[in-house]
């Protein structure tokens, strides 16, 4: 097992009347993408900002690259890259200027080639000479990631890097995160997009109300939650629901479709045979693997859309 680059024990951050982070424990291993997943206000950003040396914890310990963040963060500042949640670039600087400037703030004199290489990494070469005020939201985030990479960091914190971006920009950034991971860097990614965590993360910690509700590899969490595979009977309606209930299978209705959960993959064949015997009039029929969304629903009891819980 790779060495731990982050070790968090009993970490807490309390404000008057609110426990933003309430005693969390986790470890992040070298070279992995670790995702803190949860709705807005779950405590994700507060947790990473403690790890970035930007907030002081109320209790607990946090070691980043073997250093206590509350005491000697200055020693590791050059080894860590940060893209804050609320990143805004300097409006009047071009990406080329911003990356060069940021490099000097990390005691690095970047040559034009170095700057171009970094901008190429984030696919911003075409917009290298445009003032940041004219960049799109996705391009601004890419610039933020480029700036976080200037110090050649071992550890990268990306706090909600795709929030508010269109699907194409999100997928571009996912590709970028995968490339960063492939270079052997460790990435801590906070997000409220379940699909993003599932796509990118080697390990996920689901945060809710300041605590970690579940922690592990995405597939492990899906398996543990028992959501397994779902058979979707498209357009089966009320009659279909009653017919499946008579078979004694775990079932629910969603937008006129009937969803039958198959927790144990070995039961799939017999379940399909039973469903076929019902001879229901259907629009279509397909199977769907369990997702982190199912895990989240099981743990929290609510769905999440754009970081907001839908009761």
């Amino acid at each position: 097992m790779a060495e731990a680059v982050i070790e968090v024990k009993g970490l807490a951050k309390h404000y008057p009347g609110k426990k933003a982070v309430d005693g969390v424990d986790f470890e992040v291993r070298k070279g992995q993408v670790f995702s803190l997943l949860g709705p807005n206000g779950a405590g994700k950003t507060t947790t990473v900002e403690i790890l970035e040396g930007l907030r002081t914890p109320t209790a607990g310990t946090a070691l980043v690259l073997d250093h206590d963040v509350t005491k000697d963060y200055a020693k590791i500042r050059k080894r860590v890259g940060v893209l804050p949640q609320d990143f805004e670039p300097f409006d009047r600087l071009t990406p080329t200027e911003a990356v060069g400037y940021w490099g000097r703030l990390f005691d690095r004199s970047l040559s034009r080639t170095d700057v171009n290489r970094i901008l190429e990494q984030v696919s911003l070469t075409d917009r290298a000479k445009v003032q940041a005020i004219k960049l799109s939201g996705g391009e601004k985030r890419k610039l933020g990631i480029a700036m976080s990479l200037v110090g050649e960091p071992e550890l990268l914190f990306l706090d909600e890097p795709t929030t508010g971006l269109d699907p194409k920009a999100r997928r571009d950034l996912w590709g970028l995160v995968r490339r960063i991971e492939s270079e052997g860097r460790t990435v801590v990614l906070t997000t409220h997009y379940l699909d993003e965590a599932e796509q990118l993360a080697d390990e996920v910690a689901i945060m809710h109300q300041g605590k970690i509700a579940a922690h592990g590899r995405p597939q492990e969490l899906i398996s543990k939650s028992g959501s397994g595979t779902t058979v979707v009977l498209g357009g089966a309606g009320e009659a279909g629901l009653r017919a499946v209930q008579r078979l004694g299978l775990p079932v629910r209705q969603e937008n006129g479709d009937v969803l039958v959960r198959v927790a144990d993959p070995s039961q799939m064949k017999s379940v399909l045979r039973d469903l076929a015997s019902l001879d229901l009039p259907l629009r279509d029929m397909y199977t769907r693997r369990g997702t982190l969304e199912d895990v989240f629903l099981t743990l929290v009891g609510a769905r999440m859309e754009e970081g907001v819980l839908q009761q």
Partner: protein
Amino acid sequence: MKKLLAETFTYGKQYLRTRIGAFFTFIFPVLLILLFGAVFTSVGTSTISLPVQDKDGSTLSHLFLSSLNDTGVVKVSMVPDTEDLQSYVRANSLSVALLIPAGLEANASACAAANGRYCTNLTLYGDPSRSTYMVAQGVVEAVVEQMNFALTARNPAIKVDSRQVVVEGFTAIDFFLPGIVGMTVMVSSMYFMTGLCAEYRSRKYFKLLATTTLTKAEWLASRFLWFSMILLISLALTVAAGVALWNVHVTLNAFAAASVFILAGTFMLTSLGMLLGSAVKDPESASAVANAIGFPMMFLSGSFWALETTPFYLQAVAKVLPLTYLNSGLRDSMVYGNMNGALVNLAVVVVLGVVFFVLGSKLMSWKER
């Protein structure tokens, strides 16, 4: 040092690209000097302080001083007999002072008896181009005329002479130049710094900078360095415009002294801006706070008119405004050649700068709470 310079020049690039900063630093002061040069006229007055050295100490001189006070336009204050009045005027950066010579009463009486003409003189020291001087001269001459009439009813026995104390050839616009320079320092450092701190906080730039190896002190020093550089250029442009268009008199020494004041003033007002900026949360509040402090300073610190022409309570207010000391120091060095006065003002500016800097850097936080 590399980081400091990188921070300074990168900020400078952004500052100039916004164009607003460049306008207020380079264009606005030049426009002001053009405007004031073109439209300058004498400023109205309330009670003017008139320092008087009475070497006669006679009934006539006392009567004369009492008459001056009765006009309600001037208020007489006494200068000790032991002082050399010319040096006193220079040392205290006075625009006007009156000398009553020994033997005034005796000479005037003898003159009246002999039907003589102008047997004795009162001397006004100061700068005839100053509005306060002009008003004081008018009042003194009016009272002398009344006294001449009462003494002889024929030929006047007393006349009023003028002695210019400031450097030969200065005009009214010369007195505006330091005020315009002082005001530009305030606008370009205090206003901008207050807004900048609020913007950096609201747009989370401070938080972003906190993730780098740049220290707060380096950031502050870079801003001071940038504002100092552009204000020195602004001074050169403003002086050049004044010299070319209005024949303003600025010697190399005066320019050098003004440069020192610009550095000290920039330090003081940048630090004050940082202090104000640390207390506000958003750019809108920053603008309101900077205006609340800046506007009174602009008009009550002697940027546009002599403080002596303002009511006493406004003069008291001016004494607690930091810009007053910058303006006074600039005038002492650029106009009066009063280096002692300039040094005192410089000391006040530096001390206030240190106080604001310490308070501002204590209160300003880059981290989240």
